[in-house]
């Protein structure tokens, strides 16, 4: 593994991503007046019914060192592929209840297409390449492990 010179940004946050954090992120971009378009993707924990039991929460864990490296590589790839002003990625670790947000991807560009294409690229890459694991917890204390499609 080649050591990268740029500092890696911390992606993981403990517990759910709060709407206030999203609002703060948006507000921080109002000084960047070359931005014309933002795209935001939010992953929310669903209360899926599986064999008659309802998902109450997902307990996220990760191979954090590798995950932060993968996030860094994905971010660099997005900056290479798309004309972006900036991009931010946050993912939960620990317990996120159904209805709460576990993933926040935020892209900004001069024009809409770049922001939207980049956001989609990032979401797909994160789901495919980052070693994050999700334990779906049911009411009766049983669980099952989530698998991305």
């Amino acid at each position, binding site marked *: 593994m080649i050591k990268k010179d740029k500092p890696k940004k911390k992606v993981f946050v403990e517990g759910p991503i709060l709407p206030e954090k999203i609002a703060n992120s948006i507000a921080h971009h109002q000084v960047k007046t070359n931005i014309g378009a933002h795209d935001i993707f939010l992953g929310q924990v669903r209360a899926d019914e599986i064999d008659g039991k309802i998902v109450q929460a997902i307990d996220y864990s990760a*191979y954090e060192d590798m995950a932060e*490296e993968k996030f860094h590589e994905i971010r660099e790839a997005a900056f290479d592929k798309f004309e972006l002003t900036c991009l931010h990625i946050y993912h939960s670790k620990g317990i996120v209840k159904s209805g709460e947000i576990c993933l926040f991807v935020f892209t900004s560009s001069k024009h809409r297409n770049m922001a939207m294409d980049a956001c989609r690229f990032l979401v797909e890459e994160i*789901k495919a390449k980052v*070693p994050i694991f999700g334990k779906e917890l049911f009411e009766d204390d049983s669980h099952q492990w989530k698998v*991305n499609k």
Partner: protein
Amino acid sequence: MTYSIYYFGKITEHTNCNYERLNCELSTVKGMKEALLKKYPTLRNETFKIAVNKNFIDEEILIANDSEIAVLPPFAGG
């Protein structure tokens, strides 16, 4: 050879630990897989990938001494 092995997610339900140090012969990813299945036979029913020093490498490449090995079940980010 000594390898540090980390287990994640559902895999830990088979190994009953997150981490162990394994002394064994010089091995490839393929060989490591076989050794793990021998030690934890129920892993046979699981889908998993092995990362070496945080990367996926060819199954036939030899794993250097002191490598960090991770046994990873399917990803569920997002």
